[in-house]
């Protein structure tokens, strides 16, 4: 019986589940290669193009494009909108998640569906809804005009549309988390004599903080990058109502490729940064 294991034995070993046979490892690598190739063509290539085009005329031209007043205004507007929308949606999101996770009430499932609505509805429609409501021909258009309040084609419209589109992110993140964590700690705090606010800030908030941060990051990313809904309500007034995504489009249409891609690269960097923070948060959560 010299010469190692027999042929049958080898075949038996090879056929054991979980073993790397030649075919199974081939299949594995083919699939990895396929998905990598797909990603390269669809994701990495465009990303690279953004930066290559932005830097095609050198660093100087790249930084020059940020000195444009309209570009600066667009960046400022985007940050302003995010600064209004993200905190508001965070507060509403916590409130909604709290209500849904901690209380039983009629129409609860309907409320959950409503929260999902902005994700289901096309952003363009979300924008149009506001135009129909507050536009010159809209339901409240005349009333607003008489009082000299402009919502559509102005900053309030952009804020409203962005808020609508980004509403679900915090709430959707918190609802399952709160349901899973239960009420016991809050109840313990109450029996120990803590009031409502103290319970919230010392018990609930620390408990859900990582989920909350995650939701806020997603909400922020969407708020800065939103195009469709904002495009409908903004009116594209340069230097006044263009956010960064809209400004990219305008510059591109004017054949100012370096400018367009420079702003685009900034947006991309913001997105990448968001993703990095997100991964860090996910690591921390574990």
């Amino acid at each position, binding site marked *: 019986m010299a010469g190692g294991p027999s042929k049958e034995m080898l075949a038996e070993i090879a056929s054991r589940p979980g073993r790397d046979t030649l075919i199974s490892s081939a299949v594995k690598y083919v699939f990895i290669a396929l998905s990598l190739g797909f990603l390269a063509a669809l994701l990495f290539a465009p990303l690279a193009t953004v930066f290559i085009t932005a830097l095609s005329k050198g660093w100087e031209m790249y930084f020059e494009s940020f000195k444009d007043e309209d570009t600066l205004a667009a960046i400022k507007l985007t940050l302003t909108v995010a600064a209004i929308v993200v905190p508001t949606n965070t507060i509403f999101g916590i409130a909604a998640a709290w209500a849904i996770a901690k209380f039983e009430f009629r129409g609860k499932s309907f409320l959950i569906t409503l929260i999902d609505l902005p994700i289901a509805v096309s952003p363009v429609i979300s924008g149009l809804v506001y135009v129909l409501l507050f536009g010159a021909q809209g339901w409240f258009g005349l009333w607003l005009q008489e009082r000299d309040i402009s919502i559509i084609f102005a900053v309030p419209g952009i804020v409203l549309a962005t808020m609508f589109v980004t509403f679900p992110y915090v709430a959707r993140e918190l609802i399952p988390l709160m349901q899973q964590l239960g009420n*016991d*700690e809050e*109840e*313990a705090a*109450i*029996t120990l*004599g*803590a009031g409502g606010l103290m319970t919230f800030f010392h018990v609930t908030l*620390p408990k859900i903080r990582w989920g909350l941060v995650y939701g806020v990051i997603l909400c922020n990313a969407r708020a800065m990058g939103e195009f469709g809904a904002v495009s409908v309500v903004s009116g594209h007034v340069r230097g006044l109502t263009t956010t960064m995504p809209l400004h990219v489009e305008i510059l591109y249409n004017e054949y100012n490729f370096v400018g367009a891609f420079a702003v685009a690269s900034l947006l991309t960097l913001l997105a990448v940064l968001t993703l990095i923070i997100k991964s860090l948060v996910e690591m921390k959560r574990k």
Partner: protein
Amino acid sequence: MSITLDQVTKRYQGSPVVNDVSLEVGEGEFYVLLGPSGSGKSTLLRAIAGLTGVDHGRIALHGNDVTHVSARQRGVGLVFQNYALFRHMTVGENIEFALKVRRMKSAERRKELLRLVALEGMDDRLPTQLSGGQQQRVAVARALAHKPPVLLLDEPFGALDAKIREELRRTIRQVQRELKITTVLVTHDQEEAFAMADRIGVMNLGRLLESGKPDELYARPATRFVATFLGAANLLLARQTEQGIRFGAAPVNARRVEKLEGGREQEVVAVLRPEEVELAPTRDNLRTNFIANGIVEEQVFTGAFERMRVRMADGAANAHIASPNANGGSNGSAALLDVTRTQHEQRLFPLSLGQSVAIGVRRIHVLPTPLSSYTAYGSDEASCERLSQHPLLVELASRMKTRIIKRNEAPLVACDAPASAPVSGVAVIAAGQKTADQLQWLLQNGAGEVLVLPAHSSPPQKVLIHWADDSARRSTLAVAASLLRHVAAEAVYVGILPEGSGGESQRPFGVRTLLDARSEAQAVHGLEMRTELRFGAAADELQRQLTESQDPMLILGVSDPAQLRGTFGTLFTSGATYPMMIVYRPSKDSEGAVE
């Protein structure tokens, strides 16, 4: 009294999860609420803590009514099954939480508490760095930090393994003794209850069935549920006679049998603990009272004890009612008796499977319940069968862990000839035109309790209780209490006085009767019931009450069969649409039964 609960009721979506619970826990007492899941014990605990409101009743802590005081103000110490520690705070911060809320100095108290639960020096750990047992110790220390009036523990050992559980049990008991703090612990584990309790309260279906010292509850349970839930028990139907207890054909003149009060021969439910059963090769070798012969069917070695099941032969086989398939009219062939023997007994009389043995019993406890078993009466096979399948009857029998027998009696049609055998246990008949005649016939043939069931009836929500005269009071209350332990319904005693000036003048007397009835129900039977005083003809008033209530049931006590035709005749002629339980005790015998 540290904790006083007075008729506490909590409903969830209309049905009561805690039903009329009254309870007093003394100063420094360790009280254990024991019950299966869904029995309402945790809800009751949360109600004491103030985390759940109550729909009815009062809760007092140290004499202060706290029914409408918030959980925050009550400030009880509460320990949860899954610890509920603040996971982002260190052990020290967790313990100091209650003191921080109250802006009290905390460093010293923290040290003291950590010493108390044997976790010195763990201040700076995070809960996630501790084992389950340690986390629960922290939770106990945290709950005690602000010196709460009472300590409540909700299944605190549920998530721990056996060894740690035992250790933690000891710690908690020690802490409790040291601080002399009144403690209520909720558990579904009877071993845990025995190990820790000064007193145990057993809950089922939202009711507090019995409450007492562990050994007393174990030795003398009043209800089937407690008998089988606290330890193992064989339930057997027996006849209580002048000479003692009889199982089937075999008379048992057990010396240590506890005698039931009352001289009347009747069917009773006997409790045989597995360790009180003696096995011997023959009848003559038994040192205790012989009840039956049997064959060993199952044998399990469990370390200290040997557990076996013995199939009973002879007439005693019919007596067994606790086997799982006992409901639905089984003929008792599955009469398996649970027996445990010590190593010592095993050595004296080694047994193997299939061996035949003589069964003796050292001690029998007779349950004071008047509802022993059900017999469905019909004038033909089909009607018997139909009645024995009645959902309400099946439900009652399975909750009472008793059996339903079918009895085909032709004389039921004409009600003239005597029955083929005397009636024992609760007789059940279908409601119809001849209900009154059939009732009388059954009572003449020895029935003490008759259940009348309409073809369709939902489980009762409200049980009205009434008796024709005072001699039927005691037995009616006993039947009502026994029945209501198994039905989640509200109990109302209706006292009725004649209308007009005659009734008015009797009013003080009537009110006293009501109060007496209520306190007797509570003191003797642990039954909480509401009372109502009405004026008018008894039958009409009852009829009115029954039609006004949703899903009612009537429990009616009489001392003379003629009352069924006379005073209450109208109740039966109309063809009742609700279940009725008729309790009959002849007045001359009842004198003996009262004292």
